[in-house]
C-alpha cells in the first residue's frame, strides 16, 4: 500500500503540488512570524545591552502609569551631585534621551516613517554608547551628530544642516559626526546627539535630566552601589544596575511585541485554516475520482485499514514535505513581513535572524497536523468504497440519515460558535485573554458550522449570483450556475475557503468603519473649537509654545489645550487628562452624566471629573475621593465632582486641571490644542496664518480644522486596515488557489461533456466563459457568506463597546467593492483552468473510455 500511496502522489502532481503549496504557505507564515519576532526580541536585547555597557547603575524616572510609552517626566539635575556624594561612586553623569523630530526647512518631518527619532546628549567616558564612524561628537551648541543610517537615508553628511524640532522649537545644527549604536543596525530609530546643555535646551528641559549613568569605584559591586544610591534618592527615581535596566527595557518592548506576535500568528492561523479547506477538497475529489481504483484494490483483498492507511500516508508525506519546506520559506517570509512593515513606516531592528528550535517544532507539528486532519474525513470515506465499485461507475455513498445528522451537527456547531462568542463578549469575564479566546474559538466554530451547512446554501446562493450572468449570457451562464450546484459539497468547501478570508476582511473593514464613524461623531459632538493643533504623528505631544503662538494670531478668541498623563489607581493603570478650566467650555462640549459644563469650568486642583463607564466599573460615585499615584511617585487624592460619557475615549479615565498635571504628573506639554475663532473671523485665513507661524517655529505641528481632523483620524485607521489587508492577502491567495484546483479537477471530470459542447458548436471562447462564470459564482458564494459573517461578527463584537459610544457603521460602498473584487478574483482564478478547458481536443475529449 505504501507503494500505491507514493505512486499516487507522483501521478497526481497538480494536487500534490497544490497541497504542498497550501501547507507551505501557512507554515511559512507561522514560522516567519516566530522568526521575525524572535529576531526583533534578540535585537532589542543586543541594543539595550549595548546601550548600558559601561553603566553600572542607571537612574531614571519611575514608569508609574506609563505603560503606553512616551516620554517620562524629567528630574532635576541636582540629583547628579547627590549621587556623586554616595560612597563607591567613581563617576556619575546626567543625560538627555528624549523624543524629537528631524524636519526640513518648511517644518515638515524629514521622513514619514513611524520610527521614533531621539535627541540624546553627549556622554563622558565610559558612558558613551554611540560609536563614531565619521567626524566627531558635537562640542558647541550649534553642532550635532546623527546616526549613519538616517544620514544615508536622508542623504546627509558632515557639514550639512540638520533641523531638530524639540519641545522648545525648531533649531538648525551643523552635522559634525556620524555615529551608530555598537554593531547593531539602525535599531529602527534615529538618534541625533547634541551637547548636554543644548539637548536640555531643545527639549525644553533646562536644568533637568532624563537619566543618570553611574560607574562604580573599583571593588564596589553594582548591586551594592544600587542599594546605596536608592537610599538617598526620592521614590520617583528608579535605581537599577545597568544589567537590570537593559533587561527591563528590553522586556517592556518584548511585552509589546508579544501582542504583535499573537496578531501575526492569528493571521497565520487564518491562512492555515483556509489551506485546510483546500486540502480537504483536494483529497475529497481525489478519493471520489479513485473509487474504481479503491474498489479494485478491495477486490484484490486490501482491507479497509490498508485503504485508510494509503490515503493517510499520502497526506502525511505531503504534509511533511509542505511543512519541511515551509520552515525555510518562513525565514524568507520573515524578511517579507519586515519589508511590509518598512513600507508602512515601521522600521524594526535586525541584528541577525534568530531561528529557535521552538519555531521549527511548532511549524512542523502544526503543518503536519493540519494536513492529516484535513485529509482524515476523505480518507475515511475512501474506506467505505465497496469492491463492487471496481465493476461499475459509482459515486461515493452519501446516505440521507448521515446528511441529516451532519446538518444538525453543523447547526449545533454554529450555535455553539455564536454562543461562545457572546459569552466571551457579554459574559462579564474580567480576564481579557479568556474572553479573547472565547471570541476567537467561537469565531472558528461558527466558520466551521457555516461551511458544514453551506452545501445547502450553495443552490440558492448560486441562483442569486448566477442570475445576472444567465440574463446576460443565456446558456453559458445557465450551465455555469448548474455546474456549481452539481457537487454542492465541493463548491461549498471551495467557497468556504474564500469565505474565511473575506469574513476577516469584512470584519476588519466594518469595525474600522465603525471606529471612523464613532470618532467622527465624537469630534462633531465634543469639539467646539474651530481649529486644533496636534503633532504631525497624531499622538505625540506638541510644544506649549505652539498654543501661545496661536493665541497671538489675530482672529483667535480662545486657545485651550488637552494634556495626557498616566497614573495608577489601586495598582491599576489609569489614563489622566487635563484641561484649563477657564477656557475649556469654549472648545469642548461633553456628554454629562452628572454635573454640567460649569462643573468643569469651576474645577479645582483637588477635584476631578471621571468617565462614567470607568466610574460604574469601579463603583465610584460623585463625592468619593480617589487617590491617584502619579509618575512623580506621589499619592494625590482627588474628589469626584462629575461624570461624563466619554464617547471617543478622548479624556481617558480622569480629568484634572492642567496645573495639576504639570505639578503632580510632570507633564508640561499638551497633546491637543484647540483654537476658537472670534465671531466672523475668516476661518481659512486664520488657519493659514496659524499654520505658518507654528510650523516655522515649532515644526511637527499640524493645524487642522474639524474636517481635516476627522480625515486625519480616518487616515490613521485606514492605514491600520491596509496593514491587516496585506496580512490577509495570503489567506485570500490560498483560497483562490483552492478555486483554481477545484475548477481544474472538476473540468477534468467533465472532459467528455466539454467535448460534446465543443462538438455541437460551442466556441473556445464560450468554453472559457463557462469556466470563468463557474469560478465567479463560486467566488461570489464565498464572498457573500464571508461578508454576512464578517458583518455579524463586527456587530456582535461592537455591542459591548456601544456603552463607550461605539457606533457601528456599515461601509456599504466598500462591501460592494469587496464583492466586486471577489468576482474579479474568481475571473483571475479561472484563467488557467479556463484555458485548459478551451484547449481540450474535441476528439480526445469525446474518446470513448
Amino acid at each position, binding site marked *: 500500500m505504501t507503494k500505491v500511496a507514493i505512486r499516487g502522489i507522483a501521478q497526481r502532481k497538480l494536487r500534490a503540488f497544490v497541497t504542498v503549496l497550501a501547507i507551505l504557505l501557512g507554515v511559512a507564515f507561522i514560522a516567519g512570524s516566530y522568526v521575525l519576532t524572535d529576531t526583533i526580541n534578540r535585537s532589542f536585547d543586543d541594543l539595550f545591552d549595548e546601550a548600558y555597557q559601561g553603566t553600572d547603575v542607571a537612574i531614571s524616572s519611575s514608569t508609574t502609569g506609563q505603560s503606553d510609552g512616551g516620554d517620562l517626566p524629567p528630574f532635576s539635575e541636582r540629583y547628579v551631585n547627590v549621587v556623586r556624594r554616595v560612597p563607591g561612586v567613581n563617576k556619575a553623569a546626567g543625560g538627555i534621551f528624549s523624543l524629537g523630530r528631524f524636519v526640513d526647512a518648511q517644518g515638515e518631518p524629514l521622513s514619514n516613517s513611524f520610527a521614533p527619532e531621539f535627541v540624546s546628549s553627549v556622554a563622558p567616558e565610559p558612558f558613551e554608547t554611540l560609536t563614531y564612524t565619521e567626524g566627531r561628537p558635537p562640542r558647541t551648541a550649534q553642532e550635532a551628530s546623527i546616526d549613519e543610517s538616517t544620514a544615508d537615508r536622508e542623504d546627509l553628511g558632515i557639514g550639512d544642516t540638520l533641523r531638530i524640532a524639540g519641545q522648545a522649537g525648531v533649531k538648525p545644527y551643523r552635522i559634525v559626526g556620524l555615529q551608530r549604536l555598537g554593531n547593531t543596525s539602525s535599531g529602527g530609530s534615529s538618534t541625533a546627539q547634541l551637547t548636554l546643555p543644548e539637548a536640555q535646551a531643545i527639549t525644553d528641559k533646562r536644568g533637568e535630566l532624563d537619566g543618570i549613568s553611574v560607574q562604580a569605584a573599583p571593588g564596589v559591586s553594582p548591586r551594592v552601589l544600587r542599594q546605596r544610591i536608592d537610599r538617598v534618592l526620592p521614590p520617583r527615581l528608579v535605581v537599577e544596575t545597568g544589567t537590570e535596566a537593559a533587561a527591563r527595557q528590553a522586556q517592556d518592548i518584548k511585552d509589546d511585541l508579544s501582542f504583535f506576535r499573537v496578531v501575526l500568528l492569528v493571521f497565520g492561523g487564518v491562512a492555515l485554516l483556509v489551506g485546510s479547506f483546500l486540502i480537504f477538497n483536494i483529497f475529497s475529489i481525489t478519493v471520489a475520482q479513485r473509487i474504481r481504483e479503491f474498489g479494485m484494490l478491495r477486490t484484490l483483498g486490501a482491507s479497509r485499514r490498508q485503504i485508510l492507511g494509503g490515503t493517510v500516508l499520502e497526506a502525511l508525506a505531503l504534509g511533511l514535505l509542505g511543512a519541511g519546506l515551509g520552515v525555510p520559506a518562513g525565514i524568507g517570509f520573515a524578511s517579507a513581513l519586515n519589508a511590509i512593515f518598512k513600507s508602512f513606516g515601521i522600521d524594526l531592528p535586525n541584528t541577525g535572524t534568530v531561528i529557535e528550535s521552538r519555531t521549527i517544532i511548532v511549524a512542523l507539528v502544526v503543518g503536519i497536523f493540519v494536513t492529516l486532519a484535513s485529509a482524515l474525513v476523505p480518507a475515511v470515506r475512501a474506506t467505505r468504497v465497496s469492491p463492487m465499485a471496481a465493476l461499475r461507475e459509482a459515486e461515493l455513498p452519501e446516505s440521507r440519515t448521515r446528511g441529516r445528522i451532519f446538518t444538525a451537527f453543523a447547526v449545533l456547531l454554529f450555535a455553539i460558535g455564536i454562543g461562545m462568542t457572546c459569552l466571551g463578549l457579554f459574559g462579564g469575564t474580567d480576564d481579557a485573554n479568556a474572553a479573547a479566546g472565547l471570541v476567537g474559538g467561537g469565531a472558528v466554530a461558527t466558520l466551521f458550522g457555516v461551511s458544514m451547512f453551506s452545501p445547502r446554501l450553495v443552490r440558492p446562493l448560486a441562483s442569486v449570483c448566477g442570475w445576472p450572468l444567465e440574463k446576460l449570457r*443565456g*446558456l453559458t451562464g*445557465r*450551465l455555469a450556475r*448548474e*455546474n456549481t450546484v*452539481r457537487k454542492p459539497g465541493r463548491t461549498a468547501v471551495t467557497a468556504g475557503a474564500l469565505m474565511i478570508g473575506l469574513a476577516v476582511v469584512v470584519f476588519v473593514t466594518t469595525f474600522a468603519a465603525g471606529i471612523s464613524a464613532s470618532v467622527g461623531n465624537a469630534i462633531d459632538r465634543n469639539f467646539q473649537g474651530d481649529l486644533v493643533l496636534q503633532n504631525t504623528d497624531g499622538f505625540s505631544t506638541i510644544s506649549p509654545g505652539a498654543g501661545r503662538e496661536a493665541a497671538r494670531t489675530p482672529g483667535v478668541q480662545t486657545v485651550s489645550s488637552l494634556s495626557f498623563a498616566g497614573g495608577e489607581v489601586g495598582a491599576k493603570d489609569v489614563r489622566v487628562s487635563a484641561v484649563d478650566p477657564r477656557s475649556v467650555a469654549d472648545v469642548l462640549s461633553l456628554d454629562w452624566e452628572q454635573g454640567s459644563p460649569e462643573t468643569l469650568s469651576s474645577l479645582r486642583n483637588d477635584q476631578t471629573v471621571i468617565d462614567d463607564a470607568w466610574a460604574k466599573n469601579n463603583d465610584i460615585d460623585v463625592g468619593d475621593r480617589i487617590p491617584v499615584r502619579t509618575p512623580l511617585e506621589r499619592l494625590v487624592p482627588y474628589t469626584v465632582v462629575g461624570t461624563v460619557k466619554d464617547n471617543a475615549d478622548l479624556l481617558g479615565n480622569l480629568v484634572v486641571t492642567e496645573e495639576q498635571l504639570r505639578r503632580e504628573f510632570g507633564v508640561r506639554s499638551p497633546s491637543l490644542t484647540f483654537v476658537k475663532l472670534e465671531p466672523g473671523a475668516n476661518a481659512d485665513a486664520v488657519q493659514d496664518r496659524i499654520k505658518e507661524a507654528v510650523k516655522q517655529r515649532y515644526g511637527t505641528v499640524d493645524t487642522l480644522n474639524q474636517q481635516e481632523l476627522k480625515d486625519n483620524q480616518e487616515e490613521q485607521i485606514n492605514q491600520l486596515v491596509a496593514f491587516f489587508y496585506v496580512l490577509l492577502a495570503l489567506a485570500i491567495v490560498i483560497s483562490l488557489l483552492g478555486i483554481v484546483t477545484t475548477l481544474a479537477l472538476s473540468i477534468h471530470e467533465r472532459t*467528455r*461533456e466539454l*467535448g*460534446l*459542447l*465543443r*462538438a*455541437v*458548436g*460551442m*466556441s*473556445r471562447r*464560450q468554453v472559457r466563459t463557462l469556466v470563468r462564470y463557474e469560478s465567479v459564482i463560486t467566488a461570489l458564494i464565498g464572498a457573500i457568506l464571508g461578508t454576512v459573517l464578517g458583518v455579524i461578527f463586527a456587530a456582535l463584537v461592537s455591542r459591548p463597546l456601544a456603552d463607550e459610544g461605539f457606533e457601528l457603521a456599515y461601509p456599504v460602498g466598500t462591501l460592494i467593492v469587496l464583492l466586486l473584487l471577489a468576482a474579479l478574483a474568481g475571473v483571475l482564478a479561472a484563467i488557467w483552468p479556463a484555458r485548459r478547458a478551451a484547449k481540450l481536443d*474535441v*476528439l480526445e475529449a*469525446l474518446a*470513448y473510455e
Partner: protein
Amino acid sequence: MDQIVTAHDLRRRFGEGDAAVDALDGVTVSFERGRFSAIMGPSGSGKSTLMHILAGLDRPTSGTVELDGVDITALDDGDLTKLRRDKLGFIFQFFNLIPVLTAEENIVLPLSIAGRKPDEEWVEQLIETVGLGDRRTHRPSELSGGQQQRVAVARALVSRPAVVFADEPTGNLDSTSSGEVLHLLRRSVDEFGQSVVMVTHDPEAASYADRLLILRDGQVVHDCSAGSAEEVIELMKSVA
C-alpha cells in the same frame, strides 16, 4: 445527383516512422443530399476516422473535404466551430447529454450555444416525433438509455443541419431502443429530407440505410445500396 459531402483522396496517418499507421489510405467518396448512408468495416478499418474528418473533428494528413460547398480542410478552429454549430448534427454512441440540463434544453442546446431563438413549431414537432412529449422537463439521469439517445437525435436535427453524423448510435442500446432510434433517423431522411451519415458495425442498423459503404485497411472496398440485415452480414463476410 446533389452531393452534400465530398471527400477527395483522404489520407490520415497516425504516429511517425516505423510506428506510423495509415488509418485512411486514399479515400475518395461523396454522399448525396437527403439520403441515409451507412459506413461499415471491421475494427481498425478507418471508418471512425473517416467520419471524424468528414465532420471536421479531425484533419486529414492530405486530401480535401467539401461540405455543403465549403472546403472544410482549410478552415481554422473558429470557423470549424461555427460550421459544426450551423451545418452539422452529431449523434454519439454514449448519448453525451449535458446532465444539468433538461431533455428539452438538451435538444435546443446547439441553438442556445449559437444564441439563436429556437423555432418553436419545429422543436414541438421534433419532440413529438422522438416521442418525448411527457419527458421534456426530465434530466438525462431520469431517462432510459433509449430515451436519452432519442433526445440526442432530436438535438442533432434541431438546427436543420446540412448533414447529421451518427457514430455507432445504437452501440449502447438494447434492440428495442436501437430500432426506435434507427426508425427515427430513417424518418428524418424520408420526412424532413435530412442527410444522414452513420458509422456502425451493426448489420441490423446498416439495413435502415439507403447506401452502404464498406471500409477495410483505410480504403473503400465496397459501395452499394444497402439491403436487409442478412444481406449485409453476407456482404461483410465476403468483403471484410
